[in-house]
């Protein structure tokens, strides 16, 4: 089938729109000036979204230090400072009577004011279950999906003695506990055991000395009465539907809703200044990770693609995914680029980090440099060498975070499956990961190392090397990390949120095309035609076709007989590919990506790939 041979602009959107999608719903309430804040642990970020000429666009951004801790002890002071900066930058007024005013009066204020929060360490939860890989894992999924940080998982088979569990619970002081376990009609005794461990630990909430710790019980309903008898006098117990009523069915929605409700009613209400902030916002305050999750899900639904989004920070790395309409989130609490850089070294090993560095550096020197970053985490790379080292660390942190994610984002474990004779040879045990890199359509990266990489091509290459997508995958970065604010807006005005997300939030890096198969280095594995250009891709090679942001091109891809770009081995693919700051990257390096063992050869290959991608500082773009 002939394909169009020219590239064309795609209406200024960094992502192509699904055919027929409409982002100007008639049912949308009239809100032409929206202020949204995200109260983070260190910084409160405010954005202004305005409706101009019928479209919603980002109109400004301000930030200020978060003021939830002493000496301020009032989150609203930071909010007013951040919105104040927004006022200065946009020459508009949103604050009146020391609050963000809604609705607008005398041209002062906003039509809608919304906020998210992860200040004070976010929502910290302890989860319990009976079996680690079954109900405890389901409980973990429920808590993470609700935006919590899971600080520990207690289960009957976690390998600890009761007194160790008690000591651990005492030391962690969670904001909330989620208890699960027992399918309907299943075990009761193990749940009573866990209740008594909680009773002995007498856990105290992190915030608010005088309020009782909320405990959500979402396990076997038969145990409710006895659990209430044991724990009723010491904690605030809330009974919810069983989150794993049957081995082959999860029911996470009610537990997640309860977590969100209690987050607002108990945890937020205890945090300094939130009682005041809750009266300013036009919708409930959402935890920051939950809001990001909402945005990722909206993007996946609207674009009809599987999405993987990552936020790599100084201390933690969050991954959100939607595969086949199933949403998952994980937090790798000790993988990050500054405070946690020592942990990346400990978990990945110096050798694994070193393999990504295209310069000759010994492990001893590498270790010292990473440790010096650990003890002075706010420093930034000034030399190319230091930049390449930090980007190597990012590859390993992202790779490990994806491994954590793939383990939790899985089908239900422990489910009996009907097995055929063929299964006897494949040892299928259930619980396979949902993460399918060939099905994945879009990767979104955020966090300083990705969003502020000196060259966008460097961000694209880090995502490619760490996540190893397969087939055809679009790559993007979140420009200023406004996914939280857009996530909370998505609940009120989904079309507005999606419009700003696509136009102002995401910076398109481009499209990766990765044929999958095995071949000798140098063999032709793909014939391609993209726009007016055409060529061949050889095994072990990386090519970049510069297609600008906002442009899409017709493409025809013909993989070699044993290679697949998503249609099956040797099957031709035609369609549109989307440009971006890094253009279209043809990656023939194979999966899994293996680097030469010989140092000289490894450095030569790395430099070749980095230069082909236009990602070498000082080199050609």
């Amino acid at each position: 089938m002939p394909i169009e041979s020219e590239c064309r602009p795609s209406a200024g959107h960094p992502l192509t729109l699904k055919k027929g999608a409409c982002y100007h719903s008639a049912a949308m309430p009239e809100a032409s000036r929206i202020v949204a804040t995200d109260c983070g642990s260190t910084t409160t970020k405010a954005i202004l979204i305005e409706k101009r000429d019928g479209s919603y666009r980002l109109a400004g951004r301000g930030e200020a230090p978060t003021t939830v801790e002493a000496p301020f002890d009032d989150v609203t002071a930071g909010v007013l400072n951040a919105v104040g900066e927004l006022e200065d930058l946009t020459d508009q007024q949103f604050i009146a009577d020391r609050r963000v005013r809604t609705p607008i009066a005398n041209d002062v204020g906003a039509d809608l004011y919304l906020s998210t929060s992860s200040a004070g360490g976010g929502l910290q939860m302890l989860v319990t279950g009976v079996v680690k890989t079954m109900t405890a894992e389901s409980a973990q999924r429920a808590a993470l999906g609700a935006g919590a940080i899971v600080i520990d998982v207690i289960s009957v088979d976690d390998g600890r003695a009761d007194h160790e569990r008690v000591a651990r619970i005492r030391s962690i002081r969670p904001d909330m506990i989620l208890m699960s376990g027992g399918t309907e009609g299943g075990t009761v005794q193990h749940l009573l055991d866990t209740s008594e461990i909680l009773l002995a630990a007498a856990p105290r909430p992190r915030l608010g000395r005088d309020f009782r710790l909320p405990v959500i019980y979402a396990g076997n309903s038969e145990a409710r009465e006895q659990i209430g008898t044991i724990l009723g006098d010491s904690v605030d117990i809330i009974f919810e539907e069983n989150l794993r009523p049957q081995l082959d069915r999860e029911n996470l929605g009610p537990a997640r809703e309860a977590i969100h409700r209690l987050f607002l009613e108990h945890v937020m209400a205890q945090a300094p200044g939130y009682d005041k902030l809750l009266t300013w916002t036009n919708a409930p305050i959402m935890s920051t990770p939950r809001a990001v999750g909402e945005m990722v899900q909206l993007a996946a639904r609207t674009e009809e693609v599987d999405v993987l989004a990552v936020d790599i920070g100084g201390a933690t790395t969050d991954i959100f995914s939607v595969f086949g309409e199933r949403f998952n989130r994980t937090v790798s609490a000790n993988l990050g680029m500054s405070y946690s850089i020592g942990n990346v070294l400990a978990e990945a090993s110096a050798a694994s980090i070193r393999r990504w560095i295209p310069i000759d550096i010994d492990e001893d020197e590498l270790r010292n440099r990473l440790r010096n970053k650990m003890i002075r985490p706010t420093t930034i790379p000034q030399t190319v060498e230091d930049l390449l080292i930090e980007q190597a660390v990012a590859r390993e942190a992202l790779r490990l975070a994806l491994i954590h994610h793939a383990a939790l984002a899985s089908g239900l474990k422990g489910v009996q499956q009907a097995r055929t004779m063929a299964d006897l040879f494949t040892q299928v045990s259930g619980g396979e990961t949902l993460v399918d890199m060939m099905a994945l359509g879009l990767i979104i990266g955020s966090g300083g190392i990705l969003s502020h990489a000196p060259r966008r091509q460097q961000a694209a290459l880090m995502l490619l090397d760490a996540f190893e997508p397969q087939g055809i995958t679009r790559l993007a970065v979140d420009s200023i990390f406004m996914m939280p604010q857009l996530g909370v807006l998505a609940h009120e005005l989904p079309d507005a949120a999606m419009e700003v997300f696509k136009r102002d939030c995401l910076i398109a890096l481009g499209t990766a095309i990765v044929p999958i198969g095995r071949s000798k280095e140098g063999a032709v594995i793909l014939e391609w035609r993209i726009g007016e250009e055409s060529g061949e891709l050889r095994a072990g090679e990386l090519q970049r076709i510069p297609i600008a942001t906002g442009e899409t091109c017709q493409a025809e891809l013909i993989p070699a007989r044993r290679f697949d770009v998503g249609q099956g081995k040797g099957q031709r693919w035609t369609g549109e590919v989307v440009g971006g700051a890094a253009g279209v990257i043809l990656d023939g390096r194979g999966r899994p990506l293996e680097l030469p063992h010989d140092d000289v050869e490894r450095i030569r290959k790395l430099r070749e790939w980095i230069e082909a991608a236009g990602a070498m500082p000082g080199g050609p773009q």
Partner: protein
Amino acid sequence: MGVAYTPGLRVTPSAAIRRERRLPTDGNVLVDRGQKVHAETLIAQAEMPGNLHAIRAAQILHIDPQELQSCILKQPGDAVEAGEIIAETKGLWGLFKSALRAPLTGTLEDISGVSGHIRIREKPRQVKVLAHIAGTVAEIIEGEGAFIETQGALVQGIFGVGGERRGRLRILASGPDAPLHADAVEDCEGCVIVGGATVDDRAVEAAVRAGAVGLVVGAVRDEVLRHYLGYDIGVAITGQEDVPMTLILTEGFGELAMATRTWQLLSKLEGQLASIDGATQIRAGVIRPEVVVTGDSEETPISVGEPEQTLEPGSRVRIIRAPHFGALGRVTRLPVQLAEIETESSVRIAVVKLDDGDEVPVPRANLEIIQE
């Protein structure tokens, strides 16, 4: 005039120091407000409850949980000995009885008719908090501890491992830029050794063998730290390591000369009793390791609050990242505009005149202010 926040570390011969000495649990405070204390004075002590063990009594006795109460031979609060029978079923006509023996010595905490469990608590452990620094009790924290105030020299390090220890300072390196060699380590039982630029595995082993309680040095290679601990440090929250000697780095990792000012102050204090603590926390509520030497300094104490936070032309600074890592200099300009650096990033910079006369642009984030 441009300013920036750049925290530095304290190195001062005379500081007003206030330290909280607090039990991890409620207990008894043994000092009074205004009392003079030595470093070894016991400030507070408490009994930490022993570990709690749950015994599945009903299951072991093959009875329903509700029946457990009638089988129990002990009451909550009673002491039990390991091996002692603590519950027994009535059996059939006095025969076929089942008995439950206490698996450990402790106190019977409670009996649950819901779960059928008996819980026994191990004997309590004593926890003590010493003054750690000599001074005066300034404030009592009722039932928990006290605040001690004193005047003395304070040296903050950048990173440490190991907890609180006390010993006399002993200078064993020949200068701030000289490494400490194993063969120089002698006669330092109970001492805090001050090395120079760096130590290797052999010098660390020699210090431990010689009975030193602490080692303060400019830098170590990460490999040396890994060998000393036996593992790689993950998150930079330290102080609880099970090591025979507290190790404090004043500059960082690799081979870095100890700052001259730090070296000179520690040299001046040689022979005096130092209270050291390797506890470090890089994130949220930063804690740095420290060396405190209390004494009768004639210098006026400086109140130790937040370090100087303003970077201005004329500020004395140290560069804390390559390519000039460790170099000292003075800020000459703070350009308002962003400047492109070698990595192609555009950042806020300071122009620094190094002590060797060169003038170099440095990202402001890579500067540490030196207190003068």
